[in-house]
């Protein structure tokens, strides 16, 4: 009886239904906690790109500390399109950068976050997204008020090789980006190159790659080029306004 086809079918069906019910119940129950984690992680990334939330290790309540810092320093956000026009009907924090990257550049929603430092100066933070060796690489790049000089960056990855490509999320790698410029003296967009030390003399448009992490480095290079280029129109507009 136990090996009859009917029994096997019934057994398999019952098993699948029970498992599906249990898993979806658990997933639904845990979803709010997971979403909160993701939201906090994103806020932390945004804050870290402008050198905030530095005392996180000492905070008793991580979530509360991050929310507090976010409220304090991130004073605004908006979404633009690739022509640099501000879109009113989209909320910057709600934009899923991964999804946006699948669309053609003309249809992308491009978020910008504004941070105000204690001295009153502002930084403009934009999300970047690209491909490393094993999976996505992503992060935030913060610009100074000239929309050209990099104030700070934060990168992370999903599965780059530990000790090699994975080094892109270390401070040592990210510190290099500070003060680099994405426009050359003639105002042309040149992005920031991640290249092997010694191949090109050090200048303000390049940083050193990571030995053994060349493909991840190339991924970061391409990510910056692709993601930043869609903001160029807006950055130009803002710069021209500043000169007038």
């Amino acid at each position, binding site marked *: 009886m136990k090996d009859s086809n009917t029994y096997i079918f019934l057994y398999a069906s019952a098993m699948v239904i029970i498992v599906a019910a249990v898993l979806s119940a658990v997933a639904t129950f*845990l979803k709010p906690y997971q979403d909160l984690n993701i939201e906090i992680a994103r806020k932390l990334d945004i804050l870290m790109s402008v050198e905030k939330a530095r005392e996180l290790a000492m905070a008793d309540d991580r979530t509360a500390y991050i929310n507090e810092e976010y409220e304090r320093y991130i004073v605004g956000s908006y979404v633009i399109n690739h022509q640099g026009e501000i879109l009113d009907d989209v909320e910057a924090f709600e934009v899923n950068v991964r999804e946006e990257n699948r669309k053609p550049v003309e249809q992308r929603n491009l978020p910008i976050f504004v941070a105000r430092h204690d001295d009153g100066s502002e930084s403009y933070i934009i999300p970047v997204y690209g491909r490393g060796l094993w999976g996505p690489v992503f992060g935030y790049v913060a610009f100074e008020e000239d929309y050209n000089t990099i104030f700070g960056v934060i990168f992370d990855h999903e599965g780059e090789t*530990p000790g090699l490509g994975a080094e892109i999320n270390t401070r040592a790698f990210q510190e290099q980006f500070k003060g680099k410029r994405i426009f050359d003296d003639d105002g042309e967009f040149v992005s920031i190159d991640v290249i092997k030390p010694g191949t090109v003399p050090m200048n303000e448009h390049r940083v050193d790659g990571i030995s053994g992490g060349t493909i991840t480095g190339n991924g970061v290079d391409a990510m910056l080029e692709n993601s930043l280029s869609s903001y160029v129109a807006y950055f130009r507009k803002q710069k021209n306004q500043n000169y007038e």
Partner: protein
Amino acid sequence: MSKSEKEPLFSGKNMKLLSTPLNDENPITVQVLGICSALAVTAMLEPAVVLAIAVVVVMGAANVIISLLRNTIPSRIRIIVQLVVIASLVILVDQVLKAFFYDVSRQLSVFVGLIITNCIIMGRLEAFALSNKPWPSFLDGIGNAAGYGWILIVVGFFRELLGSGNLWGYPVMETLGVYNIGYEDNGFMILPPMALITVGVIIWVQRSRNRKLIESK
């Protein structure tokens, strides 16, 4: 039947189920199963510990569930049933990690999911839980997972210490000040092949100390 029911929960026979996988029948060093994840997550101590705990939970629970169902499972689809049980438990663990230990879950990324393909778990379900009662099965599961886990943790300890000079993210080597006298981290330790060599060293030490494992001519 009544005799076995009277058997105390922590009888010698049951405790053996728990202790042999730690040494004499260690899944990694003796049976050489589940090596792939042992290589992948041991570059640092913390993910190794979390994965070890996750495997203990999944294996203990899977063994009990399969053991409870053992008289109802049709033998023709038993492998599928085992897989479904393991996969569901792993998804549960993954969801819980994502909800309450987000940072660690980000570090482990796909490796939690890969517990499903860990051959030790399926091996124990097939070899033990399908033909034993829940309590011994539970002990067998916990024992084997712990046998797997302690190897993972030892490997993770040495790889993080020698490879990046840290332990659990704390800069041990820097605190000791050994960099000042010319010590350098061995970047090799972070690469997967060194996990294999570390496991090899553990096997060597274990065999030279444990007479039972020395093969007779």
